[in-house]
């Protein structure tokens, strides 16, 4: 909401600097986006009169002008503008003058002709193109009226002004007006709001002789006030009004339109004017449209209406889309003589629906959507009439036609002094509270320690006690409240899941993996890219109704595609080694019903590529992670069917009959899809299951007191026998005496027959209660070797 300081001062005395004004307004609840200071930078720009215009001898599009700036000599200026004429008063920047943005103008030659300055457009003087009156949009600002030649333009036109852009929160539509902001300023700085004049000096005829108004949908239109103005003369509005509109962000059009816009900005009440010639049967009917009705709005667009849209109709047809935009068929024209001024109150939800449906958002619709006090209609209509009279733009007709079926009122709210203290923690007396509330135009009556408060109807946001406590707090000043700490004691609690995730992040980073975070919504193509089969559970997506694009249209079911994308991105940026992990949610459609929340499961992905990385570094990370999480005895089951991975280098991780995840070397076709030109490895864990299986309890085991005996063995076995098969037998047969078994070599080559491999282990034997003798070890060890031979045909090789 753009508020020109010069304008708001009409309603409230402000005796502080703009800086202080802003600071205090912010602290009382009117936050500010920006403050713009107009006219500050303008230097050496004066009022000039064009006394001669001639064509440039060597340029078709340039004109050579002689300008009188009240000095003895005329000033010659070359211009490219075509809206100038002899006798026009214009802003002239002289040699060495400055324009907003620090632009300095110097004399020089334009196509060989001397030019001693420049004629200025409103844009050059700092106005945005979208607020400049159409005639000056591409030309020089032609001043309307007599000015002293040579007078400083900033002074002459009053171009020095600060404009504050207030951020208006959705609960305060009343602040979308100069009076609304004036009311805030009055409460902030003290002082009384001065309401604008609304009483006309002279009124002729009666409004009701011109127009009849009927509201057929009172639930959608709470009030409709019509006033009539005759003998209208359309022309430009005066500079003071044009400037205020421009500073407030609106383009001046003509006196009637400008007045309606001006009053809208002043009161917050949208206003529309009809040419009464176009109103059939002199009748206004507020009713909904006919389904499929075609209607051309003021902007020249033909629109297709539906039966729930509220329309303004005359005796025969629609003449306006209520609260959104008027109709082409009844617009104000150059020769309009009598007008109907509409100040109505439309239902916000209905306006929002219509505006959305038609994709037509206007100043009026935006205001109606947020909710407007119906009690404003009358004052606003009167104010329009007063300004028409003031500007001599027409003759105001007596009275109005006011259809207002149910008057909107506000009801008393009880405020308890104790409650104020309970919520705010400050001790305010009843008197102090009363003073604050009264500064906001509320009527307060004291009832002992309580008070009955009636807010003005403009404050539709004030419904209950807490609303008023907020008013008290902000006008008292948040900054004046003390700082204390809450009294109660409590221990911070962290869920087991949170603890385990934090621990996992520590372990993973400890193993050199960087944590990544990727979007929860993904492209459904991700599962194609990682070769997930049709009809797999991974494709049963939770879909967004309104995604930003296909690439963010479904909730992820696995993290692997995101991980691959990150690996691919890093690879493409020539990062030669990556080790990364992510812990995040995955989403699964509820099996129950459409509207039920999806199931969210924690998942974890690990990905890596680069020198030294292999299936086994990845597996090693998992094993260490599991050790820390207290998951013992996870087994790795070869898997050759899962599309993501190399069929010979993939395993499912199983613990106590539960699958915890899958890991492997990424299938070359998948790596290719992501542009990764090297072997890469990935793993996805069902982290919710991992957390279920985790056990963070630790118990001390005594350190060994007696020495261990180690035996290294190398076994020749068939290629298809897995290390795990051998280890299982060793562990089984080694029994209590076997402390550990560790693989230290796998050999295939010259000394080993084709189809066989040599697998070497160190077996460590130890007893907890004595020093083992060689005999004791030999007995067990031999049994291990015998069973290996018997079950796996494993032959002991000479070491």
């Amino acid at each position: 909401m753009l508020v020109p300081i010069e304008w708001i001062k009409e309603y409230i005395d402000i005796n502080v600097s703009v800086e202080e004004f802003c600071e205090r307004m912010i602290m009382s609840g009117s936050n500010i986006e920006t403050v713009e200071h107009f006219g500050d930078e303008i230097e050496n720009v004066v009022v000039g009169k064009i006394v001669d215009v001639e064509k440039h001898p060597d340029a078709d599009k340039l004109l050579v002008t002689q300008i009188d700036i009240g000095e003895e000599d005329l000033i010659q200026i070359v211009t490219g503008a075509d809206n100038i004429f002899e006798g026009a008063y214009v802003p002239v920047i002289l040699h060495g003058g400055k324009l907003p943005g620090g632009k300095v103008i110097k004399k020089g030659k334009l196509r060989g002709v001397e030019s001693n300055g420049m004629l200025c457009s409103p844009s050059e003087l700092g106005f945005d193109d979208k607020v400049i009156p159409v005639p000056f949009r591409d030309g020089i600002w032609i001043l309307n009226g007599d000015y002293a030649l040579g007078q400083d333009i900033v002074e002459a036109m009053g171009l020095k002004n600060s404009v504050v852009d207030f951020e208006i929160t959705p609960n305060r539509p009343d602040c979308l007006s100069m009076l609304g902001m004036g009311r805030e300023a009055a409460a902030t700085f003290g002082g009384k709001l001065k309401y604008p004049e609304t009483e006309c000096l002279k009124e002729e005829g009666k409004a009701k002789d011109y127009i009849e108004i009927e509201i057929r949908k009172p639930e959608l239109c709470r009030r409709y006030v019509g006033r009539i103005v005759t003998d209208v003369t359309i022309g430009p509005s005066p500079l003071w009004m044009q400037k205020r509109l421009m500073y407030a962000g609106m383009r001046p059009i003509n006196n009637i339109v400008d007045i309606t816009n001006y009053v809208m900005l002043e009161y917050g009440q949208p206003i529309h004017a009809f040419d009464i010639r176009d109103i059939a049967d002199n009748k206004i009917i507020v009713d909904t449209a006919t389904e499929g009705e075609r209607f051309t709005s003021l902007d020249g667009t033909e629109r297709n209406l539906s039966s729930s849209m509220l329309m303004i109709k005359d005796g025969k047809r629609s003449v306006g889309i209520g609260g959104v935009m008027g109709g082409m068929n009844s617009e104000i024209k150059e020769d309009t003589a009598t007008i109907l001024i509409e100040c109505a109150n439309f239902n916000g939800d209905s306006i929002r629906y219509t505006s959305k449906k038609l994709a037509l958002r206007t100043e009026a619709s935006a205001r109606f959507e947020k909710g407007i006090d119906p009690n404003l209609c009358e004052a606003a209509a009167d104010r329009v009439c007063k300004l028409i009279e003031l500007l001599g733009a027409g003759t105001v007709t007596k009275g109005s036609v006011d259809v207002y079926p149910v008057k909107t009122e506000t009801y008393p709210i009880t405020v308890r002094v104790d409650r104020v203290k309970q919520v705010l923690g400050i001790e305010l007396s009843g008197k102090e509270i009363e003073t604050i509330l009264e500064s906001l135009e509320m009527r307060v009556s004291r009832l002992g320690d309580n008070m009955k408060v009636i807010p003005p109807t403009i404050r539709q946001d004030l419904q209950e006690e807490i609303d008023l406590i907020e008013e008290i707090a902000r006008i008292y000043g948040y900054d004046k409240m003390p700082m204390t700490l809450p009294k109660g004691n409590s221990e911070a609690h962290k869920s087991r899941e949170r603890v385990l995730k934090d621990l996992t992040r520590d372990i993973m980073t400890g193993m050199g993996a960087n944590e990544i975070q990727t979007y929860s919504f993904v492209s459904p193509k991700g599962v194609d890219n990682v070769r997930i089969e049709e009809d797999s559970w991974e494709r049963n997506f939770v879909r967004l109704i309104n995604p930003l694009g296909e690439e963010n249209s479904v909730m992820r079911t696995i993290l692997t595609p995101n991980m691959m994308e990150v690996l691919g991105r890093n690879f493409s940026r020539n990062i030669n080694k990556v080790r990364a992990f992510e812990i995040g949610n995955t989403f699964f459609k509820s099996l129950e019903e459409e509207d039920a929340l999806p199931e969210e499961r924690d998942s974890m992905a690990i990905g890596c590529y680069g020198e030294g990385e292999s299936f086994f570094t990845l597996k090693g990370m998992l094993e260490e992670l599991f050790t820390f999480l207290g998951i013992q005895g996870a087994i790795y089951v070869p898997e050759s069917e899962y599309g993501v991975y190399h069929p010979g280098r993939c395993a499912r991780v199983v613990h106590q009959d539960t699958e915890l995840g899958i890991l492997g070397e990424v299938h070359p076709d998948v790596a290719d899809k992501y542009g990764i030109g090297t072997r890469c490895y990935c793993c996805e864990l069902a982290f919710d299951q991992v957390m279920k299986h985790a056990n963070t309890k630790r118990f001390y085991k005594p350190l060994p007191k007696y020495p261990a005996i180690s035996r290294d063995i190398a076994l020749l076995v068939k290629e298809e026998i897995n290390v795990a098969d051998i280890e299982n037998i060793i562990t089984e047969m080694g029994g209590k005496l076997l402390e550990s078994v560790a693989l230290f070599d796998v050999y295939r080559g010259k000394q080993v027959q084709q189809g066989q491999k040599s697998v070497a282990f160190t077996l460590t034997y130890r007893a907890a209660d004595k020093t083992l003798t060689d005999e004791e070890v030999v007995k067990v060890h031999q049994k291990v070797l015998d069973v290996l031979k018997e079950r796996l045909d494993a032959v002991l090789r000479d070491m």
Partner: protein
Amino acid sequence: MQNQLMKILQEAKEQLLIASTIIETEEIRVKLLGKKGQLTEILRSMGSMNPEERKDFGKEANTVRAEIEALLEEKFSAMKTLQKADQFSKEKIDVTEPGTKFHLGVKHPITIAIDEISRIFASMGFSIAEGPEVETVFNNFDALNAPQNHPSRDMTDTFYITDNTLLRTQTSPVQARVLMKENPPIKVISPGRCFRVDSPDATHSPMFHQVEGLLVDEGVTMADLKGTLDSFAKQLFGSKVKTKFRPHYFPFTEPSGEMDVSCFKCGGTGCRFCKGSGWIEILGCGMVHPNVLKVGHIDTEKYTGFAFGMGVERIALLKYEIDDIRLLYENDMRFIQQFK
């Protein structure tokens, strides 16, 4: 014989003076004291002496022997010192060469920021509560007193899954869940992902993180809210920062406010981070609206509470001077590793 002893001693002294290596010294030792050494030979020859002679000579020979041993030891020790010095000089390394690389991984900056924020609130007794990313319209809006026509409910602002489920736009629905489940005193923070319809650019991300907090108990006041958040700001940004509370509007709190901190980059004098104002907006906060407490059937006359919420990305961007929010989700290793 005695002359011979003296001569041996004299020679030993001379030779040891010349000897320049441990090997030479050892040779001298062998030559004198070895099995066939000169002194050993002489001592062995004592067998042929008469007892009287042997006694005197023996005494003298032992003195000489002790003296030679002492000399040898001194020489050896000197030689070893020399040898070590030589070794050290040969083994000299260039300590300015880089150390062997160890690669610890790094947590994502968003995790780091959430951890830090959580740690501060944990120290003030706030537990962590979490909730799902896909929420009901009820928990995300209705329970939080959002008006039916609040613009944030629009499809242009919120991602919907169905008419009644959506991607949460804030972590506040966790507050609703906690209020419905637990009885006061309630003291939680809820960090997590949120989603809003925003096309990604340098300052916007359709997915982002928030940390919200909620305290409901008897006697909780707005002064407590100010005190708690002021303490938080000082712990996060340094004890010198000042806080400023401005009124604002949120449907789920009343009175509502925003907290600015004095710019921790320039100290409040004005710089590009605070856009010259000296203040940086950090979070939204307020006293929990009675309508929200009512959702949890909490006696609003007995209990009051405060709530607050902050954008983690915003804090991370400011703290680490990151100029483009998209960097957080590109996951370039060179970016993440900067947060070691």
